[in-house]
């Protein structure tokens, strides 16, 4: 692993993301919407306790999937990734560099939630722990979609519905027991349950929640490796 290569990719991604208004909107619109709903519903604490975790879950699921897939597909379409790869950068160095910057920006984007949630120190640490697990899973899924897609237009047709399905499943589980049971194998549902439990509405087993998230991550890593190997070089 060459640290210059990862540094170059991180520099590129940091500068480009700050100038990519659509990507920034996608990342920061969730906390903004959460604040709007918080002020609209703050007189009804029960509603706040349901809605805010939903926005957080949607943020953790949808933002990384769409961002990561969009970044990779745009670079493939405009051939900029080809230039990087033929400068000696390896595919995994590229992905690590992009994911590193995206992770940093995503973590910053969830900080505003803390002012609504008012967690204690232990809850805050666990919150960030599960946030990071969720971001990693979502970025793996976004990478898979980005590698498989041929261009930006095709990536949108896959990433948006898929991320909405996974992100909104916790909300659907509120209204249906069968959906609630089935969705417990997904990291989105587990993260929702953790945040909801911190707001005092239910109890959840952190150990099992962690196990499910890690299992999801392991499956996604296998899927990623399969897709990456099958599709060959990322420049194709």
């Amino acid at each position, binding site marked *: 692993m*060459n640290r*210059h*290569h990862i*540094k*170059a990719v991180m*520099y*590129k991604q940091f*500068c*480009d993301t700050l*100038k*990519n208004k659509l990507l920034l909107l996608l990342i920061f619109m969730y906390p903004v919407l959460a604040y709007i709903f918080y002020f609209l519903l703050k007189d009804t604490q029960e509603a706040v306790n349901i809605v805010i975790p939903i926005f957080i879950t949607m943020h953790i699921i949808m933002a990384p999937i769409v961002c990561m897939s969009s970044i990779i597909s745009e670079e493939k379409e*405009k*051939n*900029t990734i*080809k*230039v*990087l790869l*033929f*400068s*000696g*950068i390896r595919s995994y160095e590229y992905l690590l560099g992009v994911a590193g910057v995206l992770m940093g920006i995503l973590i910053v984007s969830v900080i505003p939630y803390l002012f609504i949630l008012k967690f204690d120190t232990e809850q805050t640490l666990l919150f960030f722990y599960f946030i990071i697990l969720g971001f990693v899973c979502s970025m793996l899924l976004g990478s898979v979609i980005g590698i498989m897609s041929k261009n930006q237009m095709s990536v949108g047709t896959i990433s948006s519905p898929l991320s909405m399905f996974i992100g909104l499943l916790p909300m659907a589980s509120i209204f249906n027991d069968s959906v609630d049971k089935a969705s417990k194998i997904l990291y989105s549902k587990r993260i929702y349950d953790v945040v909801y439990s911190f707001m005092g509405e239910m109890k959840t087993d952190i150990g099992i929640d962690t196990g499910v998230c890690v299992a999801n991550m392991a499956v996604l890593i296998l899927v990623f490796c399969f897709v990456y190997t099958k599709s060959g070089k990322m*420049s194709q």
Partner: protein
Amino acid sequence: MEHSIITECLCKSFGEKQVLNSISLKVKKGEIFGLLGPSGAGKTTFLNILTGQIQADSGKGLIFGQNIREFTAQMYTRIGMLLDNCGLYARLSGYQNLKIMSIIYGLSDDEIIEVLKEVELLADKDKAVFRMSKGMQQRLAFAKAILNKPEILFLDEPTTGLDPVTTGYIHNMIKKLAEKGTTIILTTHNMDEAAKLCDNVGMLYEGKIVEYGNPQELCYRYRVENLFRVISNDDEEIYIENNESGRKKAAEMLVHNEIKSIHTVETTLQTIFVKLTGKELENESSSY
């Protein structure tokens, strides 16, 4: 080592179409070599094989004595590429685009500034690429290709679609680099450009090298003697041989005031290409 690039019997097919058919050539260190041919002749495919982007079906290629099938990261630090796509990040500035490459190659900011000065983009270094004109973008892409002071520079139609001023600018930069010892491989379908710049040219047609050599020597070898080109008052081109009957014909036309102008016939790479292949290049006017 005398030759920077050696290829032997390189072949490449895409499906049933044979794009390159047994291409063998040698390019010396410091030489400007032009690969000429119309669109679809296989020029870009040849460059892609030499730069390790795709593999040839058969044959051998050596760059710096190393097999092109075993391209390493270290080899990429010794070559520069200006390919059919610029690979520039549109939202980033010119400086930022070069900064990415400078981090990869371990270069300093001073070297970025130096290259920007060379391509006369220093004043616009903070301008986003999407706000630059096509000529500026091409100069920036050229700067990116030469930033690491490559020993071999691959240029794929570097002046296509550019205005004459920018084209002349790029030509001057190519000549300066060659004077400093950089080996340059460029592809073009502009024969005038090849004649002006290249030490040697290879004419590629339907995957085969149909002629190879120094442009001036080729023109001398294929020269057409004893022929005049007459433009009539109706702007019709008439070719007249410099013999007794031809001179009589010309004299008659002069007496009847039918001649607008008389020219000698010079052989160009274009006329050689037409003679060898029967085909003209797009947007090129024939002089024969």
